[in-house]
């Protein structure tokens, strides 16, 4: 018995050596020794965490609680593997405090996974939404006639372009020029600013293009960007210019018409500009029309108009009536000329007109081309209205005409 308990390896009995009365006792001791040894071995194995082991014989009642513990540990090992695989549906029953803690842990892991899954689903949905929106945006923007260029404010990089530049620009030399203009407009804009509208033109020797530009500051994939929406308004601009010409130009001579001339005169007076008002009346136009026909009369008119238009690009020349013209010349553009110098300039112009007089086949002058001038120096202190100024110039023109008729008679 002592060996069974304290030295099991050397515990050994040979029942055959015992007398008949003690044989059963000896056999019983042998069974007890085996059971104790098996139980001790199993306890050692369990203490080392060894689970894939041969268990004691079924008849070993002594080892039964340890075998139950072995079954429990086997189950726990399986449960833990299941948790590691992400199976949180299993629970442990009837293992007291350990079961409570384990089941709590599984519950928390399951909740955490659900939360993570929900977040992942949300992120996935957002990504899908974003992708859909992006596809929609690209589809819509691709079919828009407007050109959209998303400019990174910091780097000037083009984050998105809905049409290739060559399909929009009239000349490939415009590309660099255009991007510089866009960046210049985009850089001062801040997120939250109201959209702005600008217009600009691209000019080269071979092409001219007008654009209207709408600028929207936005966040674009974490970039501070400005959406530049460009509309090519070249055709509209040209049409506008054509209509402006129809409305403001005299179709026969190409100079401005009376309406425009008088409008400008009113504006210049209102702005207290200092300028020269030159009233021009063609001499003998009626005679030319009557004698040489309206064709010749028209040539005469065009000659005068061209002469006046050649005075200065900055001067506004308008035809007030059949044989009357008005020239408005801002003193700032008159190269410091005073009234005398301006008068002289127009006298020279009158000589030039006379020199252009029509000659017949024999080289003799058919009629002398001439014009009468009425010049008014309008200062900043002018208080006269446009019609008063025009009347004054008209008056001076008649004086001039009378004087020169006298000259002609003399």
């Amino acid at each position, binding site marked *: 018995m002592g060996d069974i308990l304290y030295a099991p390896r050397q515990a050994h009995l040979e029942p055959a050596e015992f007398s008949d009365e003690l044989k059963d006792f000896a056999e019983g001791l042998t069974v007890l020794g085996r059971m104790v040894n098996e139980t001790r071995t199993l306890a050692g194995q369990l203490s080392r965490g060894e689970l894939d082991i041969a268990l004691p014989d*079924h008849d070993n009642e002594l080892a039964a609680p340890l075998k139950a513990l072995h079954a429990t540990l086997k189950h726990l090992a399986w449960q833990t593997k299941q948790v590691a695989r992400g199976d949180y*549906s299993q629970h442990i029953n009837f293992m007291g405090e350990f079961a409570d803690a384990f089941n709590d842990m599984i519950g928390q892991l399951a909740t955490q996974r659900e939360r993570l899954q929900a977040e992942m689903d949300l992120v996935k949905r957002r990504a899908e939404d974003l992708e859909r929106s992006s596809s929609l945006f690209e589809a819509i923007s691709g079919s828009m006639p407007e050109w959209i260029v998303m400019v990174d404010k910091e780097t000037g990089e083009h984050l998105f372009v809905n049409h290739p530049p060559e399909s929009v620009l009239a000349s490939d030399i415009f590309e660099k020029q255009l991007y510089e203009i866009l960046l210049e407009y985009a850089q001062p804009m801040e997120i939250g600013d109201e959209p702005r509208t600008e217009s600009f033109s691209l000019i080269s020797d071979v092409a001219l293009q007008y654009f209207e530009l709408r600028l929207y500051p936005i966040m674009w994939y974490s970039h501070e960007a400005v959406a530049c929406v460009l509309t090519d308004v070249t055709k509209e601009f040209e049409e506008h210019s054509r209509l402006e010409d129809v409305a403001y130009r005299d179709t026969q001579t190409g100079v401005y018409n009376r309406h425009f001339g008088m409008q400008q005169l009113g504006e210049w007076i209102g702005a207290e500009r200092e300028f020269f008002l030159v009233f021009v009346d063609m001499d003998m136009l009626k005679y030319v029309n009557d004698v040489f026909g309206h064709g010749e009369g028209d040539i005469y008119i065009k000659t005068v108009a061209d002469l006046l238009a050649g005075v200065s690009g900055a001067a506004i020349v308008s035809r007030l009536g059949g044989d009357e013209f008005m020239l408005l010349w801002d003193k700032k553009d008159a190269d410091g000329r005073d009234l005398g110098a301006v008068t002289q300039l127009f006298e020279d112009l009158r000589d030039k007109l006379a020199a252009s007089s029509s000659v017949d086949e024999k080289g003799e002058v058919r009629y002398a081309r001439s014009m009468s001038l009425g010049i008014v120096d309008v200062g900043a202190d002018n208080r006269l209205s446009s019609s008063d100024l025009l009347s004054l110039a008209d008056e001076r023109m008649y004086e001039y005409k009378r004087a020169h008729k006298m000259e002609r008679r003399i």
Partner: protein
Amino acid sequence: MSNIFLKNRTINEFRWENLGDVKMGREDLGEEMPVIVYRLMQFTMLDVLTKEFGSEKANEFFVKAGFLAGSEFAKNVLDLSVDFNSFLANLTQALVDLKIGVLRMEAFEVESGKLVLTVGQDLDCSGLPVTNETVCHYDEGFISGILHAYTGKKYDVKEIDCWASGDRVCRFNAEIAS
């Protein structure tokens, strides 16, 4: 006098409905009873069948009855449409709720479908005197029936440890029948 409505009705052919409305029928005594009554019926039946047909045949009858019970139990109590882990969790809980036993998995090989499980505090055998034999033939059939109902595959289930053979839990090996 025959009744046309009760024609062909017999309790001898098992149908889940024939388990009856226990709550209604036992309004005072209720739905539960001591395990000893269950065992009294089971082991007297085993006794009679063994004497009539021999122990091997009697055990075979128990396996067959267990299979029928397991199939019907799975079809009527469990959700067969869920994934295996959920099915297992539901089965474990149902066995506890009905006080049949404490099911615990020890191993499951996905590829082969082989599994090892134990049933503790088993209705059939826990607490029986040790006779050095496995006695849970009904459980073998019961587990096989459940697995068949869920997987559609025939399982051979063999009890390798049993309370009656000296263990504290009943351990079963289950393999898909070749």
